[in-house]
C-alpha cells in the first residue's frame, strides 16, 4: 500500500516545514549591524592587505620610479625576471637559508626547550639566559656577532687558536658567510624556544606515564607522545620561520656591511650588500636594491608578487604535510 504524505498547502511533499522568514527590512538591518561590527577589520584588511596586494600586481606591469605616474609596459618586467642573473643568485641564497636556517632554528629551539622543560634547579635563570638574545634588536645583535667572529681580532678565533684550531674567515668568507648567519640565528632562538617550552610543559603527564607503563623508551615517548602533542606549535614555527626567512634582510645587510669594513655615509649601504662575493645576497635585498636604488619599482613589484606567491605556496604545502602527519599519527 502506498502511503501518501499530505503536506501543508504550497509546500513540496517531503520537504521540511518552511520557517517563517523575517521581513526584508529586518534582514537588511541585521546585515548592516553585522557589517558595521566587522567594518574596522574589513577596512584594515582592505587598506593594508588587499590594496597593497592589488597595487603590487598592477605596478608589476608598469614602469614606475616612485616619482612619476606608472606607465603600462605589459609583460616587460615579467620577461626581465627570466633573464635576471641577480635574481637567480638571490633566490639560491634565500633557498639555502630556508632549507638550513629554519630547521636549524626549530631543532635548536626544540632541543633547548626539552632540556629546560626537564631542568629543576635554576630553571628560571636558564630560561631567562636563553631568551635574552632574542630581545636584542637585530642590527645591534648582528653588529655584536660580526665583531665576535672577526677573523683577525675576534674572541671566537682567538679561543679556537688557543686549542690549536685555525678559525675560518666567518662573515668574510663566501663559504662561511651563510653558515655564520645561521649561527647568528641560532643564538637568537629564544623567541621560538619559549613557545616550544610552553607547549612541552602543556603535554599531559598521564600520557607519558601510560607510555612508560606500556614499556616505551625515551625516544618512543618523544615520537609517540611529545611530537603529536606539540605538532600545532611545530607547524606554527615552520610556517612563520619559512616566511621570515623568505624575507631575510636586516641581518644579511648589516653583516655584509660590517664585515666588508666599508661603511658608506650618504649613498646607503647597498654597495656592500652580498659581501663577500654575493654569498649573503638574499632575495629581499635584491628587491630593495632594484626598487629603491636603481629606481625600477615596476620590476621590484614583480619580485614582490613572486615572493608572495612562493610564501603562500610553501605555507599551503606545509599545512597539507602537517595534516597528513597528524592524520598518520592518529
Amino acid at each position, binding site marked *: 500500500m502506498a502511503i501518501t504524505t499530505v503536506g501543508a498547502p504550497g509546500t513540496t511533499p517531503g520537504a521540511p516545514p518552511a520557517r517563517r522568514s523575517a521581513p526584508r527590512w529586518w534582514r537588511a538591518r541585521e546585515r548592516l549591524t553585522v557589517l558595521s561590527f566587522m567594518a574596522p577589520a574589513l577596512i584594515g584588511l582592505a587598506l593594508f592587505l*588587499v590594496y597593497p596586494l592589488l597595487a603590487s600586481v598592477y605596478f608589476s606591469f608598469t614602469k614606475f620610479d616612485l616619482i612619476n605616474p606608472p606607465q603600462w609596459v605589459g609583460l616587460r618586467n615579467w620577461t626581465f625576471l627570466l633573464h635576471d642573473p641577480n635574481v637567480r643568485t638571490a633566490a639560491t641564497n634565500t633557498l639555502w637559508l630556508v632549507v638550513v636556517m629554519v630547521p636549524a632554528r626549530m631543532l635548536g629551539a626544540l632541543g633547548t626547550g626539552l632540556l629546560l622543560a626537564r631542568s629543576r634547579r635554576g630553571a628560571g635563570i636558564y630560561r631567562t639566559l636563553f631568551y635574552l638574545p632574542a630581545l636584542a634588536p637585530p642590527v645591534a645583535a648582528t653588529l655584536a656577532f660580526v665583531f665576535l667572529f672577526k677573523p*683577525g681580532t675576534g674572541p671566537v678565533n682567538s679561543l679556537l687558536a688557543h686549542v690549536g684550531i685555525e678559525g675560518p*674567515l666567518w662573515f668574510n668568507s663566501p663559504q662561511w658567510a651563510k653558515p655564520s648567519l645561521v649561527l647568528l640565528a641560532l643564538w637568537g632562538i629564544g623567541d621560538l624556544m619559549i613557545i616550544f617550552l610552553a607547549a612541552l610543559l602543556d603535554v599531559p603527564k598521564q600520557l607519558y606515564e601510560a607510555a612508560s607503563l606500556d614499556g616505551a623508551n625515551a625516544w618512543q615517548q618523544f615520537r609517540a607522545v611529545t611530537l603529536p602533542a606539540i605538532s600545532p606549535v611545530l607547524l606554527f614555527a615552520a610556517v612563520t620561520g619559512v616566511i621570515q626567512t623568505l624575507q631575510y634582510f636586516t641581518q644579511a645587510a648589516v653583516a655584509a656591511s660590517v664585515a666588508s669594513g666599508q661603511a658608506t655615509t650618504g649613498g646607503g649601504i647597498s654597495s656592500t650588500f652580498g659581501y663577500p662575493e654575493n654569498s649573503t645576497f638574499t632575495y629581499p635585498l635584491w628587491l630593495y636594491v632594484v626598487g629603491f636604488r636603481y629606481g625600477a619599482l615596476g620590476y621590484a613589484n614583480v619580485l614582490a608578487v613572486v615572493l608572495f606567491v612562493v610564501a603562500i605556496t610553501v605555507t599551503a604545502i606545509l599545512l597539507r604535510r602537517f595534516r597528513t602527519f597528524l592524520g598518520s599519527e592518529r
Partner: protein
Amino acid sequence: MSLTLGRTALKRTIVVAAVALLTAAGCTPSPSEKPVASPGVEPSGTVEFWHFFTDREAKAIDTVIADFKAKYPKVNVVVKSGQDDTKMLQAIGAGQGPDVGLSYSTDAAGQLCNSSAWIDLKQYVDRDKVDVNKFPETVRNYTEFKGKRCAMPFLADTYGLYYNKTLLAEAGLSGPPKTLTELSDMAKKLTKRKADGTIERAGFLPLSSFYENVPSHLYPMVGAKWLNDDGTSAVGSDPAWKELLKWQKDLVDWYGYDKLEKFRASLGDEWSADNAFHKGQVAMMVDGEFRIAYLRDQAKDVQFGTAPLPMSDSQSSRYGAGYVTGNIMGVSRTAKNPEAAWALVRYLSTDTGAIVKLANLIKNVPTTTEALANPGDLATDPEFKVFIDMFQNPNSVHMPSTAIGPALEETMSKFMQKWQSGSATDLDAGLKGVDEEINKQLQLAG
C-alpha cells in the same frame, strides 16, 4: 539569518573596489608648479634641508646655514642631517621630503634628474642670471643630465693616493709611486709579514671593496670607459678594464687572497679612529681629500703625504689626474617653498664666501673658479693642494650619470670581488657579463 551579499552585488563591490584601489595606486604627487617669482623678490618662509653629513661635518653645515639665515632673515632653515639618497627619494615619492636635498654622489644625478625628483632649475638660473660657467667643466657636466640642470654643486671630492712618509723612509723609498708598476713594487717592499706568512702590514691593500677601493676610484688609473657613445656599457669591450683587473689580481695573488682577506678582516672601520692607514697597518691607500681632516683629528702622529693616482704604464702621460665626484643639491618637486629653497641652493653653490668657509671647515674641494682661485687656508696646505690641482686637471674624470644610479659601480664591484678571489677565472666572459647586466638595467629603466 543570511549574511551573504548577493553574488552580483559582491562582484560589483569587488570590481568597484579594485578600480578605486588601482586608480589610487596610480596617483603620485604632481610636481611643484608654483610660478617663479619676479626678479628681486626677497625669499621668506621655512625651508627643510636634508643632508647626509654627521658629527664634525654636520656642525660645519650648521655654521654656514647660520650665515645664510643672517643674510636672509626671513628664511628659516630646518636642517636634517644623516639622510641618504634612498630615504630622500622615498620621501619625495610619498609627496614629502625636503625642500632642498643634498645627494652624496654624482651617480645619483641621472636618477634624480631623469625622474624629475629634483626640478629643472633653468628658470631660476636664467631669472637670477647665475653664471654656470663659473663652475669648472667637470662640475658643470656632473650637475646636468641630458641637458637638464636639475642640480647645483655643493663642494667636491677628489681621490688620490695617501702614503705614510715614515714607512716609506724606513723602506728606503723616496716618494710616492707614479705608475701601477711602481705601486706594486713599492707595495711589496712596504709589506711586512709574520714568520708564519700572515700579513702584519700591507704596502697597498688591493682588494676591491676595501674602504675606498671601488671601481670608480680605481678606473682613472687606466683611463677606462664606463659607457659607449650610444649609452651602452663599455666595460666588456674596453681593454683598459682588463689591464686594471689583471694588475689588481697579480698583486692580490702575490699576497695570497686568503691571507689578504684575513688581514682586511682584522682592520678597523673606515670612518673610525682605527682606520688602517691611521694605525700604520697599510702604508699607501686610495682615498679622498677629506681623509686629511680625519688624519689630523684622529691620528696626529702619522706623517703622511698625498699624491695623484698612479697611472698604468701606457697612461703615464695622464699622471696628475684623479677621480672627481661631488655632492650635489637640488630643489625637490615636492618643495613647499621652492623660492626660498632656490635661495639656499644658490647661496651654497655660488656664494664664494660660503663655499670657501664650508670647504675649509669640511676640508672638501670648492667648486667655483673664484673659490678655487682663493680657497683660503686650503691653499697653504701642501697635502690639500695636491687635491685642488687634481680637481682642476683636465684628465681627471667622474662617473657618467645614468638613470640607474649606482648600478654601474655596484655591478662592477661585485664582479671584482669574484675575480680577485679566483672564483671567476674567465676575465673576458666576466666583463661581458657585467656589460650584459648593466645594459639590462639600463633597458629596464628606459
